């Protein structure tokens, strides 16, 4: 079992190294979108400060959506996905590993560049800390829910647009709790409740998403 997990991790890291574009694309997208807002809204610090966290979260969601398209695409085209199905390992475990590695390789870099973006919006240290915490706990939920949608749309020719329509409404709860946590910081309140909610959503997603992704992939193979 560990052999399969290690194999997937090694392969995905190697592919990310060979095709750095897949990793860089979401980062560049996030930086570009976040740069456009201060230019469009003007340099008024209070205004930027008020919209900052929301803008960063929305840009991160769009960047994740952009990266999701490639989650299983190559594997579907070259037939690796068929071989995943025929593995003696449970398919949900392979899907779980795949999504976690995808999160590590494409979404964690977004967290690393986020301090730079926070400077654009003059976020205070407390606001930045809340932003990082919500991103850290919220983005795995987005990756797993996105994985379900990808598994269902993989057999379709124009899955990309459908993917957005399917996934964005499901991202709303996470977005609401995350931005509400950052609002709480501005009002100098505790945001433990919001974090607890995001944590609960994360646990729920971790429990059900891998099985659902596996089932979706199996149905899409038909």
């Amino acid at each position, binding site marked *: 079992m560990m*052999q*399969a997990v*290690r*194999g*997937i991790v*090694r*392969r995905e890291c*190697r*592919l990310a190294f*060979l*095709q750095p574009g897949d990793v860089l694309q979401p980062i560049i997208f996030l930086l570009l979108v976040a740069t456009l807002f201060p230019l469009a809204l003007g340099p008024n610090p209070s205004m930027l400060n008020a919209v900052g966290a929301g803008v960063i979260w929305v840009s991160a969601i769009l960047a994740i959506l952009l990266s999701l398209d490639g989650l299983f695409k*190559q*594997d579907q*085209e*070259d*037939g*690796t996905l*068929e*071989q*995943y*199905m*025929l*593995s*003696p*390992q*449970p*398919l949900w475990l*392979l899907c779980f590993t795949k999504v976690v590695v995808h999160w590590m390789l494409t979404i964690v870099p977004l967290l690393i560049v986020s301090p730079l973006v926070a400077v654009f919006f003059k976020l205070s240290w407390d606001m930045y800390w809340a932003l990082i915490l919500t991103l850290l706990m919220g983005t795995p939920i987005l990756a797993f829910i996105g994985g379900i949608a990808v598994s269902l749309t993989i057999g379709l020719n124009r899955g990309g647009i459908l993917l957005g329509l399917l996934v964005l409404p499901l991202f709303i709860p996470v977005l609401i709790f995350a931005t509400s946590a950052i609002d709480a910081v501005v009002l100098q309140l505790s945001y433990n409740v919001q974090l607890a909610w995001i944590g609960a959503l994360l646990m729920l997603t971790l429990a059900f998403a891998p099985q659902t992704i*596996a089932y979706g992939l199996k149905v899409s*193979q*038909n």
Partner: protein
Amino acid sequence: MLQLENVTCERQGRVLFKDLSLTVENGQLLYIEGVNGAGKTTLLRAIAGLHLPTNGTICMNDIKTDSQPAASLLYVGHKSGLNGELSAIENLRFWCNIHNEDTDVDFYEILEILGLVGLEDIPVKQLSAGQTRRVALAKLWLSQADLWVLDEPFTSLDSKGIRLITQKIQSYLAQGFSVVMTSHQPLVDIEPHQTLSLEYQL
């Protein structure tokens, strides 16, 4: 032993074959023939558990092939299952990893048998169609499965390659395992124990 009972498969609303029942004993070769679109690939995918039949059951040693985790079988289809960016060795090692096969084998030796000396470490996308096919078929040397499901294994192979794969199939059958395959090339040096002809149905 592979058993098909009353299997019916549909594709896009068209019935490909109906109430198909057959048994492939250990050590037997089932050869499936038919025109394009007759449903050969769909039948093979159903046997491998990748396509869910509309009706009927497919069992390998009394275990349904579409159950989870998958039955002990090797499927080599039209798609190579190889990532073009990775080398032949990396692809094969990854395949062994997810299939619980031994990774201590000498991949170089297997690729040498297949005539791929010097091509082990270059990305698969730079290989020719026939060479890619050979890398995909290297799984025949790595697999410990009880059943091989081969969809057009000879496509884009040269005559020497076809002979090599035929010999490998022969020795596998001699060990008491079963093979299900399709091919548009006539089989040479090997006599199928059963032949199934699929008709194109409207």
